[in-house]
């Protein structure tokens, strides 16, 4: 049973941003590995480990493969040659570059996904609504998160409906195109019509708010959390600068 974290959503976001930028700036393989390990531990503790593993693997495996192809297999570096065959050149430097770049992406992906898993969607929307952001942002986020499963369902229903009509059984390119049309057209028609029907009632309910707006839902916050947020944001901006400044002279 996944535990929920009782932190303000922005605190989680700010912490993630600070961790990702500073780790990226440092560019040390052991630091990246440590950050990923900590993320995995937090995920395990809160019960999100499986989803985190599945989601990040789906992104990271192709990325690593692609980086190995680009940097590992056709390296342009002169030294540290390991093997060469025709156009392929495998060098130590190339493999190292692929690993470093892969770890850089991995930190972003794992920390980012963990952040998503830890934040409650409804709390995030409420936090955005209560912040000075335009009132449209909260609605758009919430509506999209709601619509995704809804439209995926609709997509399945349409598939069934077309199967009932024995439509979309063609083969080859025209059959493929026909199937796309049979799936896409009713989905787009129905959802655009639905969006159109809703919009007038949404504006009748005063959306988007012209002046200040309030929320019935409360988002727990504390002075400590506010301080943590400011410090994190500061770190996200100043940290990389401080870490990287010594290199600029040498470049």
């Amino acid at each position, binding site marked *: 049973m996944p535990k929920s974290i009782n932190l303000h959503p922005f605190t989680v976001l700010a912490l993630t941003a600070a961790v990702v930028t500073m780790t990226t700036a440092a560019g040390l393989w052991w630091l990246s590995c440590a950050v990923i390990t900590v993320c995995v531990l937090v995920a395990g503790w809160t019960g999100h480990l499986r989803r985190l593993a599945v989601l990040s693997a789906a992104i990271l495996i192709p990325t690593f493969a692609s980086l190995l192809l680009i940097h590992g297999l056709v390296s342009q570096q002169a030294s540290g040659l390991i093997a060469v065959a025709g156009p392929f050149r495998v060098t130590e430097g190339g493999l190292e570059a692929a690993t470093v770049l892969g770890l850089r992406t991995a930190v972003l992906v794992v920390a980012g996904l963990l952040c998503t898993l830890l934040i409650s969607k409804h709390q995030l929307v409420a936090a955005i609504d209560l912040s000075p952001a335009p*009132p449209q942002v909260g609605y758009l986020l919430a509506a999209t998160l709601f619509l995704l499963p809804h439209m995926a369902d609709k997509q399945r*229903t349409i598939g069934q409906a077309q199967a009932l009509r024995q439509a979309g059984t063609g083969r080859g390119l025209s059959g493929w195109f026909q199937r796309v049309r049979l799936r896409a057209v*009713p989905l787009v028609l*129905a959802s655009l019509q639905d969006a159109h029907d809703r919009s*007038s009632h949404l504006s*009748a*309910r005063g959306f*988007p708010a012209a*002046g200040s707006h*309030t929320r019935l839902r409360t988002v727990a916050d504390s002075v400590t959390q506010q301080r943590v947020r400011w410090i994190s944001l500061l770190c996200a901006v100043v940290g990389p600068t401080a870490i990287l400044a010594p290199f600029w002279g040498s470049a």
Partner: protein
Amino acid sequence: MIENQKNSRTGNTVLLDLKIERFRYSGAELDSLQHIEVNVAPGSLTVIVGESGSGKSTLGEVFAGILPRQGADQCLGTINLAGQRIEYTGLECQRINVAGWAKHVGLLPQEAGHYLSRIRERVAEELVFSLENEGVPRDEMCQRITALSTQLGLDHLLERDPAKLSGGQERLVALASLAISEPSIMVLDEPLAGLDAEATAAVTEMITRLRAGGTAMVVLSRTAKPWAGKVDALRTLANGQLSKASSDDLVQHSVFEPTQRRATPIEANVLLEFGDVQLVHPGAERPVLDGLDLQVRAGECVGLAGANGSGKTTVLKAAAGLLRPTAGSLAVSATTGMLLQNSSDQLFERTVLREVSFGLPKKGAQRSRVPEVLSQLGLEAFAETHPYELPASVRRLVALATVLVREPRTLLLDEPTEALDSAGLARLQEVIDSVLIRGGAVLLSTHDKEFMNRTTHWVHLMSENPEPTAPDS
């Protein structure tokens, strides 16, 4: 001019005075409304009766200031509301503040779910969506929720997820969300359509309570029956024109004669046979139903009855071959065709004619049946219309046409009466009769008891779904 003299509550004041010379949608060739004059007195009940496609919903949106859309629709007329006068002069209309208007006139759309924002986790949050946009302080919102919930009896719904409400509950929540802004007039578009007896009672009860609180109601409906005896002003709307009607001739006018069950046909071939069938939705843990025994013979019309979630749709889908039984035997010995509950999912072509003839070989026998099927369902006039521009009732018939053109021997209908008006119902009845006469069979599910009694030979009562037991883990 004043309609409600007999009603003592109304006094002399008029809340809203609407005169529409004509209204035409952008790009349309005909006026949707003509010569409309309505005035609404405080606390009164006005019922406007009209068939599907008569312009009811259009009129409702004009009431709510949603139509005409600036720079698109053509409208001539004047509206007096809350001491302000709005002039519509053709295309050049003033920019309407729909939200400000909604504080005087609230509209409950035909599809009540469209009124809900669909982005809140709990019903309580949904109720105050419009107050949140106004910036009402949180404490005041809590007070308004408590007060409204006591007045309307909503306590049991406040903590529910708005996305998981039944049709009736959805309408209750939408009504309450309208009421929380305390509009002086509420316009209700088909507030009772498609509800079973229990939900109808609940919605009617809420409307009564709101009226007791002094809200004037304008009901747009296919039938005046549920409002008999309470109406202050009754009008009929036909082809976009409004006329007065006395309450007697509408209430007594019924499309169908008193009905009786038909005789069961003599022993005939079994077209569809379920033997001890268990059905499980893909991905679900518990079976939807178990141990189903059911035989449908040629010439027979069988009804499926049971509460929501008892698996009626699932049985039909299994018969159509969309779902394989996980246990037991299912024998389908004739071609089947199924009309889905939400049949708009099936439509994708640009015209009705193309839609109905889709996928049929150019010179086949079925293709030559297309005109016949269209005329059987009264759709000839719409052959070149986009299915989405048709009224809901006619669109349902288009979906039925796409099924019929393939001449299925067994017809499977999921809630076929939903969205159908009386003309559509008559067509549906004819279709069922013609299938039975041809030696086919019909298996249908419906919550419309009258239709069930009139149409079916016998009814299979779905066994109650076992209460979902608490998960073990």
